[in-house]
């Protein structure tokens, strides 16, 4: 159990990268990028976790209860929302690429230069 979260992080990262490399559709690539991003959220939260601790909200527990790290949670929280907007920007590019080139196959898109 001690090393399982980190193994899962590495696995999700590599699986997502494999999906990006072997993809034949731009939308599939974008979703694999989402998967790669999700591995970083798991890593952040795994780093901040403390066994037997509660969530860092003190409206119902006394202030000195051992709690998990709130800083990595703050990072992950904004991360999730902001990466969604950046993914939407990628989707907009995909729409325009499809309009111009008629195809979303990365292997064919590479041939259009300039």
């Amino acid at each position, binding site marked *: *159990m001690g090393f*399982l*979260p980190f193994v*899962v992080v590495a*696995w*999700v990262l590599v*699986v*997502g990268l*494999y*999906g990006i490399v072997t993809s*034949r*559709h731009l*939308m*599939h690539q*974008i*979703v*694999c990028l*989402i*998967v790669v991003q*999700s*591995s970083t*959220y*798991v890593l952040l*939260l*795994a780093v901040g*976790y403390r*066994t*037997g*601790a*509660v*969530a*860092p*909200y*003190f*409206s*119902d*527990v*006394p*202030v000195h*209860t051992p*709690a*998990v790290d709130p800083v990595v*949670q703050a990072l*992950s*929280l904004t991360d*999730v*929302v902001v990466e*969604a907007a950046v*993914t*939407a920007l990628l*989707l907009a590019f*995909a*729409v325009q690429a*499809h*309009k111009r080139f008629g195809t*979303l196959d990365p292997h064919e898109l590479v041939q259009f230069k300039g």
Partner: protein
Amino acid sequence: MSGLLAVSTPYTVPAGLMDVLQAVLLVLVAAGATAVVLTRSPLRQVMVLSAYGLILALLFLAFQAPDVTLSELTVGSVLLPALLLLTLGRIRRREK
């Protein structure tokens, strides 16, 4: 500080049980990520992504991070699939 609110300390899950829950959810996350990548049809992949977002949110909850759970649920299971489906609709329409 705690005397100001009339709520007693809530029930906490025994540490061993929480470990098992986290291990199960971690394995499910790894399986879910593999399923998302191996689904080649974009439309089907969006549905699998939505389910993957839900499992990820449950994992974050087991990591004692309710705020991140809320974010991941709304973004990963609802908003991102909506954006993806809108884009797919745009692309499909042009291919007809």
